[in-house]
Every structure is written in structure tokens, then in C-alpha cells.
């Protein structure tokens, strides 16, 4: 029978790369990503799992990393904003001015990507529902919705100020 431990050995995949380390049982995944793995693109905006700034992908699922323990990462694949591309979405966000302060942006991109994988042609209501778990205080969501619609309608093209 397994014992309750204070630290845990975990093996996992980080943005496609295999890793192994030891984590304290009480450490949240978001702190593990930011402080231990040194990846600062995943952000913290609240302490009740409401804001979505910490959203990442774990085994393809959309997850608020502040609502998961690092120890639970064992055997999983985690993908953060640093994994890169989603070119189309980033171009669309840039073209539609869907970024202002940028703090919610990595979480928004994760949720947008998840939506489009499941539903390549969402209605504007479906887009808003999909973003429900990501708070933005700057954009009023309008341009974020437009950016996602732009990708869904196939209008995103390479190029732009990036």
C-alpha cells in the first residue's frame, strides 16, 4: 500500500520534453511551472481558481494549473505557452488587437486553442462560453472573440507585426 509522503518523484513531459524531478506534496502546479521550471508565461491572478490566468494543457485537457497539485503531474504531458506556436491564433490576436496588458493572454490562447480543436467553427456564443473561465480586465473580450472568429473563418494569415 502506498504511503503518504511529503515529497513525490514525478516523471512527466514538458512541452514535448521528458523530465523527472521531486516535488513537495503541497506545491501547486502553477508554482511548480513558474518557480521550479522557471517558465513565467503562466500567470497567477487569483487564489480561488476563478480567473484562468494560470490555464495550461495537461494531457490535452484544459486545466487551471492553480487547481492541480504538481505531484499529480506524474505520467502526464503538460503544455504551457512556452511550447510555442499556435501561429494562426497568435497572428489573429495581434491582427485584431486582442491583447492589451497581456496578463490573461497565455490562458486565453490555451482556451481558444482547446475550443478550436473541438469545434473548428464555433458561434460567437460558443466562443464566449468557452472563454468563461478566463477573466480579462482590459479588452472587454470583444477583440478576443473577434480574433477567434477570424481563425475559425480561416482569415488568419501569416505576416503582421510579429
Amino acid at each position: 500500500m502506498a504511503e503518504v509522503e511529503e515529497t513525490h518523484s514525478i516523471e512527466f513531459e514538458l512541452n514535448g520534453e521528458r523530465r523527472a524531478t521531486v516535488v513537495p506534496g503541497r506545491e501547486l502546479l502553477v508554482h511548480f511551472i513558474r518557480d521550479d521550471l522557471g517558465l513565467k508565461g503562466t500567470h497567477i491572478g487569483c487564489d480561488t481558481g476563478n480567473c484562468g490566468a494560470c490555464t495550461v494543457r495537461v494531457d490535452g485537457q484544459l486545466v487551471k494549473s492553480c487547481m492541480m497539485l504538481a505531484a499529480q503531474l506524474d505520467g502526464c504531458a503538460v503544455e504551457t505557452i512556452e511550447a510555442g506556436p499556435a501561429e494562426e491564433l497568435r497572428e489573429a490576436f495581434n491582427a485584431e488587437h486582442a491583447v492589451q496588458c497581456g496578463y490573461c493572454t497565455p490562458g486565453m490562447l490555451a482556451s481558444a486553442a482547446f475550443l478550436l480543436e473541438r469545434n473548428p467553427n464555433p458561434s460567437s456564443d460558443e466562443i464566449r462560453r468557452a472563454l468563461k473561465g478566463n477573466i480579462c480586465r482590459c479588452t472587454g473580450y470583444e477583440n478576443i472573440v473577434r480574433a477567434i472568429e477570424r481563425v475559425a473563418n480561416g482569415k488568419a494569415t501569416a505576416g503582421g507585426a510579429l
Partner: protein
Amino acid sequence: MLVANPGSRPLAGGQSLLNVLKHRAAEVEAVIDISRLEELRGIDAEGGRLEIGAACSYDRIGASDAVAAAHPKIAAVADGLVDQQVRCRGTIGGNACFNDPGSNYPPLLVALEATMRVVGPGGDREVAADQFFQDTYRVDLGPGELLRSIVIPAADGTAVGYSSLQAEDSWALARAVARVRCNGTIAEPRIVVGCVSGAQPRATAVEQALDGAEPSAEAIAAAAEQADEGLETASDAHASAGYRRKMARVMVARAVTEATERARRGDG
């Protein structure tokens, strides 16, 4: 492990427990991760009867054709709950066992006459939903026991209405669930008032008034006036006790209306 570590709690989706831990709102010695136990994550459907593993995520439930066919409301609630991130991780068992007045599933499970299957050091046992939900944050689980699955009997011609007044679409100020048979007149009404108490009270006075009645707007409205009988509501940052009581009546009326209309259409 739960028995061997008395201060421990099972961790499934973590969408409620982790908040408790982050705010240091409870003394928890350890958490025991059960989220990957396959035996807790299945969905079994046979002849309209559903058995859903306690650690089955909302996302899976919402996407399940079997659930949608057998009990559309179970799927609909999963599909609309909170947000996508919570739906990916949160589980029906977690929702049931947390049993916050705002929890979406407990009143529905009581209305559907669900059976909760429990496993523990003393063996397996089954508890009827209306016995399982005892009080706010308290369900019928003893030390070392885990909810294994939830069994919902076949709809068998009944129809369900589910009505919530949700502050900002996240947590509800008032909720009611109604399950009825209706073939010209209402029969076997089961009406549960949510958002009030973890005991998931039945609106018995309303049930009595509606039993055998025609599902007219007037009859439903008149019956629903009694929905807050014996209800103790609380005032907090979101709403006053008085408003909650009045909204209980409104939600009951709307849930019953929805149920009777679905019965008429044959939607379940």
C-alpha cells in the same frame, strides 16, 4: 489509505478541495489522489439506467451520448457547469460529496431517485440520494469510505425540469429541480429545492398540491407559492434570505413548468 491516515481527504478533480486547501480553511493532513482510478471513471448505460463513476469528469459526462439519451438533464448540467477548465477536471462525485448548497448535482440526484454506491473498509453499501445528502458539506460517508458511483434509474417516461437563478452564471442564488410524469395531469411529482441547505429538501407541500393537477400556469404558480414553506435561507454577499425564499418559489414554478412541457413533448 484513508483509514490509515485519519486527517486525509480523497482528491478527485480538486476543483473544490484545492480552494479549501489554498485558503487553509480546513486542517488536512494529506490528500489521496483517486482521480486516476479507472474503476471510478466509467459510464455504464443499460436500458436507460445509468451508472456513472464518481470520478467521472463533467466533460466526459457532457460529451456522453449514453448519458444524453438516458438522462438529458445530467448531461446538460455537466455541459453548462462553471467553465471549460472546471469541466475538464471536476467530477460528479466531487460535486455530490462537497454538497455545498450551490452544488449543481445533489438536488438533481435526489429528484431522479439516484442511488449512491459507497465502498469502504466495512464493505460496499448503497444509499438513496435523499439519505446521502445530510447537511451542508456533510454526506453519508464514514471514515475511510469513498463514493464509488452513482446509479440513476431509467427515466421510464418521467421528465425533468431544472431551473437556476445564477448570479453571473457561476453559482446559484436559487435552484429547483422537478421530476414528473404528466399525461394530462401531473403524477408522482418529486420537487427538490436547491441552494438552501445541503439536506436538499423536498418541496412536499408543492408536490401534494400538484399531484393530480392539470399543468396549467395558474395551478403551477399557485402550488409554487408554498415552495418556501419550512425553508431556512441565509443572507450573504450575493442575496438576502428573503429574496432567496421568494426565488425558491419562482424556480420551483419554472422547474415544474419545464418538466411538464418536456413531458408533453416526450423529451424527458
